[in-house]
């Protein structure tokens, strides 16, 4: 598969996290197994604890240096997906109510049209209202 790039740092990170979950089980069993004046599960606790420390410390550095520092958004594609999403209809809830908004989304989905076309066709609002109310950049926080 020439040119294929895989999320290998993410795979290393999720694997080492799986190991840490396993280490936690061994440490819990070791920790609960003391009798009277001494716990005699100490080496297995130390072994697993220090392994987890090495895994997290090295894992975070590897993930940061070889993956996280280079993260950049694909702005065009993100914009395209936002524009096409039927869930922008949620912005209309305060204006026309949940049921009408749901009808717009379902109509657009069924007929393969945009939300705006479906909304106008159903007669719930005008195209101008739609442009005023459905603005993704205004949908990312609470509003009075």
């Amino acid at each position, binding site marked *: 598969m020439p040119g294929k790039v895989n*999320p290998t740092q*993410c795979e290393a*990170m*999720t694997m*080492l*996290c*799986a190991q*840490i*979950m396993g280490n*936690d089980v061994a*440490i819990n069993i*070791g*920790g*609960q197994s*003391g*009798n009277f*004046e*001494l*716990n*005699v599960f*100490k*080496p297995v*606790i*130390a*072994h*697993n*604890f*220090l*392994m*987890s*420390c*090495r895994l*997290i*410390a*090295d894992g*975070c*550095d590897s*993930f*940061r240096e070889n*993956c*996280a520092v*280079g*993260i*950049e*958004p694909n*702005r065009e*594609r*993100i914009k395209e*997906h*936002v524009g096409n*999403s*039927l*869930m*922008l209809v*949620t*912005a209309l809830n305060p204006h026309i109510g949940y049921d009408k908004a749901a009808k717009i989304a379902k109509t657009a989905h069924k007929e393969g049209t945009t939300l705006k076309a479906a909304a106008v066709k159903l007669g719930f609002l005008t195209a101008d209202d739609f442009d005023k109310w459905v603005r*993704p*950049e205004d*949908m*990312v926080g609470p509003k009075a």
Partner: protein
Amino acid sequence: MTVRIEKDTMGDVEVPADKLWGAQTQRSLTNFKISGERMPMELVRALAQVKKAAALVNQDLGSVDAKLAGAIVSAAEEVIAGKHDGEFPLVVWQTGSGTQSNMNMNEVLANRGSELLGGQRGMERLIHPNDHVNRGQSSNDVFPSAMAVAATEAVRNHVLPSLKRLRDCLAEKSAAFNDVVKIGRTHLQDATPLTLGQEISGWVAQLDHGIKHLESSVPHLCELALGGTAVGTGLNAHPEYATRVAAKLSELTGHPIVTAPNKFESLAANDALVFAHGALKTLAASLTKIANDVRWLASARAPASVRS
């Protein structure tokens, strides 16, 4: 192979002549041929720190002759510097108190210390593994103390700095992408929009919480069992030994080590490590979530692609 004869209470044992360990280490090697996971080197170094602190305090208290204590300290410093890594061959799958590894250290420091004084290694040595190196100690308080030092060192010097570097890197990304409006996803389906900066700020907050959880485990990790000796009562230890050795280890390591207020707990339980590992486990859950989000977002068909 050239050998020398070492003895313990059970009799003679042949030990490779070029090795510093003694009879009890050799018995462990013979009787516990189980898999291959060696006692972690971080723990070996921490054990050497404990021995160094113990020797210094024993010297101050007049419990061990100053010349012998000085040689034990020098030998321990060589181990800490990594000069004798090959002298600690024992595996994790041994006695659950770590006694064999404690004796491994006592034997190596006794033989090496003897050589530093111009004496021999072996039964003619000038330093006794138990009477001098292990003076005022028991495996039962030494080993958990070494675990405390090694764990504190790993958490404070390695895990926390690495987590903070990743946290800061993601915080920078969060700020840089705060104007990128993307579609949110719940149940893996389209939801209402948010910014990429907001999304990443959630990862940063996860790491902030995880760092706090881990930091909160440090005080208990830093409670030292030393001075409790065999069952926590402190039998055969000088009354000032426990507090002095904790202060000495704190000075040597730079960690906020204190003597455990209750030695019975610090021998019979390992709750500090269980709790601290709970924080590491929680971080593993956070890091899995973050790494999974990154790879889903980077997949070609994802609704908010990122390149990395």
